[in-house]
């Protein structure tokens, strides 16, 4: 029983980080109809900046703040300098459908190379902001630590903040309107291009937090966030790619599910487990768990 609870808790901590990445992917998908594979790269760049600040100031939270700011800036920059240009040019021909996908891949590679050239390929680690010592339960300890609590708390705060922006502010309304019906939003006086850039910026900030949190417990390298991207994507697909709530639920389900596989079956099945979930969702419920019966083939 203790193992079950322990697994649930760790799964929650893992899943909450996936939630941020999957939320970032969903935010961009909703506003731009692009699955942003560069999200991992953006998060990585932000995390490296956060790492640099955190290791110089020896204050993790300052690093996090910088990572958020960097994530927001990079996100906005990618949309402004990159996606806008792309959509202006790549509008016809056989590649028009695939251009955004390929472009974000290229961007991922570009950011990876830039990070590699700047920081090198060595593993970096960020001093964790809280103890990683597991809690004592009875006479043993469980591998659930202060850091995990902090991760879950941080993610909760970020999610609440994003939810507040989207549900309670005019900016949020503009973001939602632009996502659902860009033309109507435009006719209502919303600067949809600018709104979209803000959406990318929020996604970038959220991704930056994900990168910092996942790194606080592990190493940072130009490749270290690839798996986060894949699991974030799987979570987003579970949630239907459209729904922000769905993406968070999908991520938690995935995080807990994978941790159970990890603890009860074995390490090597974790990825296969995740991949099977993805294929199953695509085959059985391709619109995700939040779908209301409306088929949506992108």
């Amino acid at each position, binding site marked *: 029983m203790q*193992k079950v609870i322990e697994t649930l808790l*760790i799964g929650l901590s*893992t899943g909450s980080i996936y939630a941020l990445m999957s939320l970032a992917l969903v935010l961009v998908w909703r506003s731009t109809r692009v699955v942003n594979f560069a999200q991992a790269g953006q998060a990585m760049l932000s995390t490296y900046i956060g790492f640099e600040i955190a290791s110089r100031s020896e204050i993790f939270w300052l690093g996090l703040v910088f990572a958020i700011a960097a994530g927001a800036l990079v996100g906005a920059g990618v949309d402004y300098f990159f996606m806008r240009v792309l959509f202006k040019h790549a509008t016809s021909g056989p590649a028009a459908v695939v251009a955004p996908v390929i472009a974000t891949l290229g961007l991922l590679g570009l950011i990876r190379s830039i990070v*590699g050239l700047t920081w*090198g*390929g*060595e*593993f970096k*680690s960020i001093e964790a902001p809280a*103890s*990683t*010592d*597991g809690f*004592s339960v009875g006479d*043993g*300890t*469980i*591998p659930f*630590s202060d850091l995990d609590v902090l991760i879950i708390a941080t993610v909760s705060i970020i999610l609440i903040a994003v939810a507040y922006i989207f549900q309670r502010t005019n900016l949020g309304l503009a973001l939602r309107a632009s996502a659902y019906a860009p033309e109507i939003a435009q006719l209502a006086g919303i600067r949809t291009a600018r709104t979209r850039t803000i959406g990318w910026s929020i996604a970038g900030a959220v991704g930056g937090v994900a990168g910092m949190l996942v790194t606080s*417990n*592990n*190493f940072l*390298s*130009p*490749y270290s966030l690839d798996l986060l991207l894949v699991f974030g994507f799987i979570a987003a697909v579970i949630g239907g790619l459209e729904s922000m709530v769905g993406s968070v639920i999908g991520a938690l389900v995935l995080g807990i599910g994978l941790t159970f596989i*990890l*603890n009860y079956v*074995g*390490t*090597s099945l974790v990825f296969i487990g995740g991949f099977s979930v993805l294929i199953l969702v695509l085959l059985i419920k391709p619109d995700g768990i939040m779908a209301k019966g409306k088929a949506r083939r992108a």
Partner: protein
Amino acid sequence: MIRKTRIKRTWLAAAVIASGSLLATALPANAETGVSAREIKLGITLPLTGAASPGYNKIGNAMNAYFKYVNDNGGVYGRKVTLIQKNDEFSPQLAIAKTNELILRDKVFALVGPLGTANFTAVHKSVGLAKRRVPSLFLNTGFSGFSNKKSYPTSFMVLPSYAMEAKIIAQFLKENHAGKKLGIVYQNDEFGIDGLGAFKAAGTKFDVTIPYTSGTQSAATAQTWVSQLAAGGAEVVVMFGVTSATGALLGVSAAAKYAPQWILGSVGSDPVTLRALGVPVAVLNGAQTPAGNPSPNDTSDEYVKQFQEINTEYNPGVAFDDYVLQGMNIGLLTVQALRAAGKNLTRKRLIRAIETKGSKFASVAYSPLGFSRTSNVGHTGYYMAVMDANGDRKPFGGKVTLYTTDSGSGPVVVSTFKRPAMPAKGLPSNS
């Protein structure tokens, strides 16, 4: 019709471009590849980036530093030794591609210090090192399969094999941890299985056995290792994996307050790298490990002292650790081998020189070298060491007790071998 002709023309154009790009000037071959009047070109592929790079990425530069030192002091019979390093990211196909470049384009004389069991197996086979008669000196891997001189006629090992290491740890467990509950975490490939087989042959029975797949090591996976070890009540845990896996295991154990007696395999026990990976030094304190070389901090050792000086001057800003020590030592062995092959340097003479004179080469490791006409085995033994609170390494029991053995069924014996002295100023003068 017009369209069809155009398509044909495109195909033709494609073919012409393809042909043109392949045509390139071929240089006339020298008397011996990679050797000129002024230079001896050597090559190595190693992981400079990626998951497996921490630690290993220092080896090439350390070798290079030593070669530069030798070059500044006259080189090898007047020839400068240059080392070309290529990044293989620890993946076999990159190792093959890069080795091809080294041999076919850069035309190196020999490979020195290639890393990784899977990589070298693949490279040896695909590039055809034996068929091309390319000397592959002082492999940085302990896979006992490479000690087959028939299959690897141009390769020479330097590390004691993983089988030897496991046999020596098994002996040590018998002598010092009898009756304890034992656990092992090992890398599930030739490297780990080589060791596991030797444990089995030596009669060591583990209560908890955890294989892991190379590349899957992370804090998350390490958490499951720790839960399994703790659940099995392992009091002594052998870690037979790479440094990143060892780092993850120790880090997570510290967090979970799980503190068995650690026995860390030689591959993953470099304290400097472990600490860079975030392992608290307190966890390393008391960990036991087989070691071949003296501690890199032991300045009373003539080799270490000399190498440290070279490192300060020729490899500035790089912390002197086991990897740097190992790299320098391979450099030292290589220069001795090149000298032993004589002024008229050929690949054949180099191989013959190591076969006939290699067992007498000076090397920092305490154990004897096993080179001969019939054996390409390098060092043949380990002593057990204990890590202290400073992350330093001291011999177990206060003084070096050297065990030697072989990769097969031979016994583990305590050896009284005395290693050759360091050549004056670290500059070999052998012939």
